[in-house]
């Protein structure tokens, strides 16, 4: 079993199923369809750029939320639940499109990968917004054994669906930060964005 099934916090699941009850009542009637592989609960990680540049790398990345997938005739959505100041969860956003589709489609493909058969991995989502990098993060017991699979659109030479070792991915992320440093030099007006 290369990908370890994990349980989301109960409060997060309650908010997810509450959203389904409200927005997708027919799906709740079909409770037998709830399986780990369909909802694919996963953590969302953010990482400090200064950590990536240093030896810390991704070892101190933070969990900012939990997501759960839902698929019906309209497509797949990722329901993101975020913990509030007092420990309560709420539905932060419902995300859909190419990135969510790719994350869902990767799961059965990665389960069959030879490279992933020797260890157990947690299926997670890495979001490096300022770098414009998002990836499936396959977390092993130690960070050096992790793998990353970039999600589209991909920049900095990253390839969609390609499995990157921790060292390879960290190296590209560091180059991306250097590129961002160059780009931020050109910010000279408060109405610019990129």
């Amino acid at each position: 079993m290369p990908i370890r099934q994990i349980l989301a916090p109960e409060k997060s699941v309650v908010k997810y199923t509450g959203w389904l009850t409200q927005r997708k009542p027919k799906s709740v009637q079909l409770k037998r369809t709830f399986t780990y592989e369909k909802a694919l609960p996963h953590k969302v990680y953010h990482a400090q750029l200064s950590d990536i540049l240093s030896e810390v790398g991704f070892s101190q990345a933070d969990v900012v939320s939990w997501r759960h997938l839902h698929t019906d005739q309209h497509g797949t959505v990722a329901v993101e639940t975020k913990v509030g100041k007092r420990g309560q969860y709420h539905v932060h956003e419902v995300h859909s499109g190419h990135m969510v589709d790719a994350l869902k489609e990767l799961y059965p493909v990665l389960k069959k990968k030879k490279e992933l058969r020797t260890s157990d991995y947690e299926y997670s989502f890495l979001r490096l917004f300022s770098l414009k990098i998002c990836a499936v993060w396959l977390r092993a017991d130690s960070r050096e054994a992790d793998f990353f699979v970039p999600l589209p659109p991909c920049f900095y030479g990253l390839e969609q669906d390609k499995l990157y070792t921790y060292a390879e991915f960290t190296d590209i992320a560091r180059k991306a930060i250097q590129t961002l440093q160059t780009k931020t030099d050109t910010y000279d007006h408060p109405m610019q964005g990129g």
Partner: protein
Amino acid sequence: MPAKKEKKVSLNFTMQHQLGHAMCWAAVGTSCALFYDPDSKWTQCKLASQSIGPNTGDCCTNPEDSPCDIVWYLQNDENIGSFVTAGIARGYEKGFIPYKKLVGELDAGRIIAFLLRMDIDGTINNRNEFSHFVAIAGYEWTDSEENVTIYDSFFGKSEMPYKEFVTNYKCHGGTVLGHAVKDSLVEYTFFSTPTSTP
């Protein structure tokens, strides 16, 4: 018991993927221009190179890392930017607009764009923020909710409460990685309008 009030509007809008990691302004401008006039033939590289200047160079062969893959504008105080070049600019406001005003724009069939200023997750070159353009092309309100549909040229589509969007888009407001950031992420709101083929 009074009937539950609710209304949903979803404009037939498609957001293109941005072609370079800094080209969200070109993707938003092109996508909005094609929404108003599908025959306008705008592309991101064409719109970007025309918006930046007459001698920008080749932005189409390899948009990423081209002279167009830079931070730029939808519209600025000198009337420069992708909305202006595409002929769809209709002014801007500092900060975010009230939900009712946003609903009025969408009811009239007009896309609203926003410039978000967010935490960079660290500090590089003495900067701790970056800016990113997105568009809103739909809403759904009920007695208890005021939701919007956000189109992002990097992430795709998101539905979330408007209040959450302006303060905490992609978990980049409130508290980020252990430190508090400012309450509103929205620096500017941009209005758009249909136009004729360039």
